[in-house]
């Protein structure tokens, strides 16, 4: 068992841009579920819309800030379209609608009818939309080695994306921190617990829930952009499983906390890498192929989610008193 390699891989996961992207997605979901009690089961849909919006706008030649705005606008419109009919319905109805809507986004995106726009099921090639982002980098081209980590400075899976990704995560955490301690956050806390009480105090519950849905969705779109910048836009890899991973990450770290999503993402990806690496090294190929080790990893994720929700729904950092599990 090559512990140096395993631990290096695990440490690599801790700073990886994918970890940051999932942390950001979980922050968005935290606003939905942790702060407001909304059961959004379609966060992957927001992420995919953000990825498509950014990539398609960039491919069309738009500057990076415009492309990011397109992504944000797409997510906001999606949230409005979802929220207008469903925010008045009961919790599990929103869950079903968001799952269905995210699936529709994926189906339309991967459909061959839209091949010229979205690349259908093979998606959009990475080098078609990364140029503007890479151009923003102040770092010189080339590779830098820091400790055991060696990445390109600017190209694809680079130091630059890592810096930007984690900076965005930090900003998002600050954002959530300010909101939680503000009167706006207080209203959400009330809504989480008892909507009628909040209505009787003169606050429009519907407006607050809609703001929360849009905000969390926009953050999800940004997460989508960060997710696809080191790779390619592939709709089939941004479907239901992605949503469920984000949920696991949020619940693992602790919903309704500021750092829960970040911690959850780090523990999730580093932990998974650790388990899979140990299995790959420890289990001979004749017993289990590499593919099967991958799958066993996901089985463990599924079981972890179950155990988490049953025995410790507040996760690592959460406070049982705050938890909005009994969602209306």
């Amino acid at each position, binding site marked *: 068992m090559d512990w140096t390699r395993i631990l290096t891989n695990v440490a690599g996961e801790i700073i990886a841009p994918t970890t940051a992207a999932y942390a950001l997605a979980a922050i968005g979901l935290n606003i939905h579920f942790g702060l407001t009690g909304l*059961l959004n089961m379609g966060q992957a849909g927001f992420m995919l819309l953000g990825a498509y919006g950014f990539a398609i706008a960039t491919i069309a030649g738009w500057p990076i800030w415009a492309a990011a705005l397109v992504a944000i606008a797409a997510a906001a419109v999606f949230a409005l379209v979802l929220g207008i*009919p*469903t925010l*008045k*319905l*009961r*919790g*599990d*109805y929103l*869950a*079903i*609608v968001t*799952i*269905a*809507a995210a*699936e*529709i986004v994926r*189906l*339309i995106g*991967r*459909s*061959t*009818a839209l091949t010229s726009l979205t690349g*259908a*099921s*093979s*998606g959009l090639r990475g080098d078609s939309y990364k140029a503007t982002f890479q151009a923003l980098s102040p770092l010189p081209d080339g590779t830098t080695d820091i400790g055991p980590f060696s990445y390109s400075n600017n190209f694809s899976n680079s130091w630059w994306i890592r810096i930007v990704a984690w900076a965005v995560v930090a900003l998002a955490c600050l954002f959530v921190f300010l909101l939680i301690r503000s009167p706006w956050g207080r209203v959400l806390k009330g809504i989480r617990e008892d909507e009628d009480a909040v209505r009787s105090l003169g606050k429009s519950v519907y407006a607050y829930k809609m703001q929360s849905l849009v905000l969390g969705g926009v953050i999800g779109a940004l997460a989508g952009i960060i997710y696809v910048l080191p790779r390619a836009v592939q709709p*089939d*890899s941004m*479907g*239901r*499983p992605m949503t*469920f991973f984000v*949920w*696991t990450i949020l*619940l693992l770290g602790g919903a309704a906390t500021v750092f829960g999503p970040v911690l959850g993402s780090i523990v999730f990806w580093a932990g998974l890498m650790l388990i899979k690496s140990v299995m790959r090294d420890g289990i001979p*190929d*004749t*017993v*289990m*192929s*590499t*593919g*099967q080790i*991958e*799958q*066993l990893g*996901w*089985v463990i*994720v*599924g*079981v*972890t*989610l*179950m*155990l988490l*929700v*049953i025995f410790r729904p507040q996760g690592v950092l959460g406070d049982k008193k705050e938890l909005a*599990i*009994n969602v209306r």
Partner: protein
Amino acid sequence: MRGAPAEGRALSRWRGRLAVVALAVLALPFLTAGPATAAGPCLPDAATGCVEGSVRSSAGQPLPGVAMAVAGASGSASTTTAADGTWSLPVTADGKYTVTLDITSLPPGQALSAESTNPHTTQVRLASSTNVLFTLVSGAPAGPVSTASASPVSSDGGDVASESGSGSGFNGGRVAQQAASGLVFGLLLALASIGLSLIYGTTGLSNFAHGEQVTLGAILAYVFCQLVGLPLLVAAVVAVALSAASGWLQDAWLWHPLRRRRVGTTQQMIVTIGLSMALQYGFQFFFGGDKLRIVTTAPDVVTMGPVTLTRMTIVSVVIAIVTLAAVSYFLLATRVGRATRAVSDSPALAAASGISVERIVRIVWTLGAGLAGLGGVLMGLYLNATSWNMGGAMLLLMFSAVTLGGLGAAFGALAGSLVIGLVVEMSSLVIPNDMRYAGALLILILVLLFRPQGILGRAERIG
């Protein structure tokens, strides 16, 4: 009902069971030699060589879902092309290998070019990758085309076996064929959905793992028919029985204890999500990523006017109708059935009238899982293939059907399933094939917008 034991003993008993199950899940892979199929890309190293390629259509589009097989010195393995058309398989010994492309898995309109040799023989070495190319041209494929897969189900992940062909017009024959397919699909979907509806009605739980109950039935049928070698009928019966047993076990070991602990339905729903993930990847772990065929014989085809169906499909339809009739009789005319509807309507009121709610719920889980398993077996036969995510892909269709019919109303699930089946099949007349599901999902959203209680549900359940 036996009295409730002390809290501490109950908790430790439950923890004990959970530990047993967890250990079993983790230990099994070490006890069984896993099939040599890879679902992730092959990485060559000192002990592994790779055979790989990329399948593109005559127009240059990547083709997912094409079945590839490799056989030679280190045994045989098979896989299907991924979403981007690529495939790769590992070998563990140097030598000559034959690579076969399964032309029945090509989409209609694509065929191997005359220059391609199929199977293709090549030399493979450890620690390196060998690329094999198959060129495709457009045209009718040589060889039998299975008409039972005239309307294959577009699944999650990359395993889409249908081409994009948009609606080729409204000629009466096609309409009739699609309508027939729709009704067949709807009936089979109904078998799967009734359990979902009843579970929601009696316990308030939206079971996101119900798709896996369907997959379980199909995979068990595959195991007992192909791997154990039982005749199809016996295998099917065993599969359904085991599926029902899985429902019983689930309620006894998981849901009943959770309900006793007063775990909320939202939490339980998230538990079903975790269970769904664990089961899906569990299936993939044991059976790989490619499609499994329950029966490998070519199907008999029966033509009735403009509609062509296989004999198997007709038998399946008959079985489905008989089963649905039996379930209806059960719900309407038997005491237990009526009690079930009472609990579905209002558990508190039912309990107050002396009905043992927990017993009814146990029956509902067993029945629902059994029906889902039967639906899975029949669906697997109808589509001539099953895979680890067959049920998962259908989960949303089931939710659409159940929501349309009215969450909690068993007959609503039947009505909703027929509508959804028809919508899915007939929408391919007007929208591209790979977007058919989107139509059903759109219906789901629209129903929730305008009539959230569905066709047969009651308005009070909603807000």
